[in-house]
């Protein structure tokens, strides 16, 4: 049986892992390579790295870091932040990443994403989306897609966007709730459920994980294929082993041996 994936997220700025709340007030947590090895040895199923300042600073992603991660761990990892061209995608994948994660770029230049999926394969391209709740008319799902770290609204409905992403050829969608990010109050369940049922590609829930119960809920009730965790493990409150034991006890299919 296919297992549900637990994916620690490492936000990296100047080669240090940081974590904020709702994309702000970041504090430093440690060295990305050491943390990647620790989580991989600890039993996580995949990792994702976001170079959170590359885009704002207008520079390419830190490829040397990607190379070091690829040397250090033997599980799949995705890299995002600052991907602006097919060359950037090639560089990240060739350095040893399994996937590239694109977000704002997909809104600005969807054709580039489609071309990336054709050239490198759908399974290599992950679409990250940052939807925010809205009462404005014209949003069937009640969520609008934002870009550039929540700073810009796009006018795109979250469900329409997820379906379009699938048509573009992306292999997976990460639904990152801006409202829930870093709050540790649980995933945005309804949003995740809507996206999981709207597309036939895997859906990753992100933003808000604080307890094992939150993870059980997102896997069992709204059928996320994977979940991103950050604060709950970065603070040391939980180990991945503890989380997995809790999920296994609840009957969730989880990778048990590593």
């Amino acid at each position, binding site marked *: 049986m*296919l297992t549900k994936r637990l994916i620690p997220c490492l936000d990296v700025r100047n080669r240090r892992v940081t974590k904020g709340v709702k994309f702000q007030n970041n504090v430093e947590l440690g060295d990305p390579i050491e943390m990647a090895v620790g989580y991989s040895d600890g039993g996580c199923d995949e990792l994702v790295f976001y170079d959170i300042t590359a885009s704002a600073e207008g520079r390419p992603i830190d490829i040397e870091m990607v190379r070091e991660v690829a040397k250090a761990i033997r599980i799949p990892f995705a890299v995002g932040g600052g991907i602006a061209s097919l060359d950037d995608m090639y560089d990240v994948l060739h350095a*040893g990443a399994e996937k590239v994660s694109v977000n704002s770029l997909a809104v600005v230049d969807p054709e580039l994403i489609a071309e990336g999926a054709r050239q490198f394969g759908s399974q290599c391209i992950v679409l990250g989306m940052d939807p925010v709740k809205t009462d404005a008319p014209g949003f069937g799902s009640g969520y609008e897609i934002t870009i550039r770290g929540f700073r810009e609204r796009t006018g795109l409905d979250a469900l329409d966007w997820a379906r379009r992403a699938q048509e573009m050829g992306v292999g*997976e969608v990460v639904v990152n709730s801006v409202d829930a990010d870093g709050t540790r109050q649980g995933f945005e369940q309804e949003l995740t459920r809507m996206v999981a049922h709207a597309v*036939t590609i895997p859906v990753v829930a992100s933003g808000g994980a604080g307890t094992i119960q939150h993870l059980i809920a997102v896997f069992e009730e709204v059928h996320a*294929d994977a979940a991103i965790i950050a604060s709950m493990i970065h603070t040391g409150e939980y180990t991945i082993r503890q989380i997995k034991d809790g999920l296994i006890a609840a009957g969730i299919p989880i990778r048990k*041996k590593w």
Partner: protein
Amino acid sequence: MIAIVDYKAGNLTSVKLALDALGAESRITSDPGRIRSAERVVFPGVGAAGAGMRALAEANLGLVLREVIGRGTPFLGVCVGMQLLFDRSEEDGGTKCLGLIEGEVRRFVPSNPLEKIPHMGWNAVRQVRPHPLFSGIEDESEFYFVHSYYCAPLVPSGIFGTTRYADIDFASVVCRENVFATQFHPERSGRIGLRLYENFLRWDGRPGC
């Protein structure tokens, strides 16, 4: 020297890094001479079967692969590298493949729309027959998969591992003499996947234990 066959079908870096981690000397290459003289051959691949077969033909590698396999060189196919060993694939409107293992490659058709395509993530491999490449690997260990098509071998005795997804138990490991092939990515499958590569490095190409 181990040849990692480069036919422009995807990213081979992780295969190379896994072999590096084991201290094995390997080279990513499309050079027929290097592949012919290699002690062992890894035939990876991601992406579509049609593009893969075209790329193999353009690089004139089909015959070279037949030759090394015919000569008994230990040979490991991975993911699309496994699928291309079969007679044909349903992908890309029907693709004729290398025909080294009898059978065809079919698309998953899940009856439950929440079983997503691609089959992506960690899934258990049931070892249905013993093999030296399973040495030290517990039965039902999970490996990392990412694929939308699966291999359906004609001869059941060639199936060494099976995995359940979308209502079927598909062949996730096949072996025929010196050719061993996995649908999953051992190079992405942590310590257990690395163990499979380690076993491959010791394997003499004979199926016995």
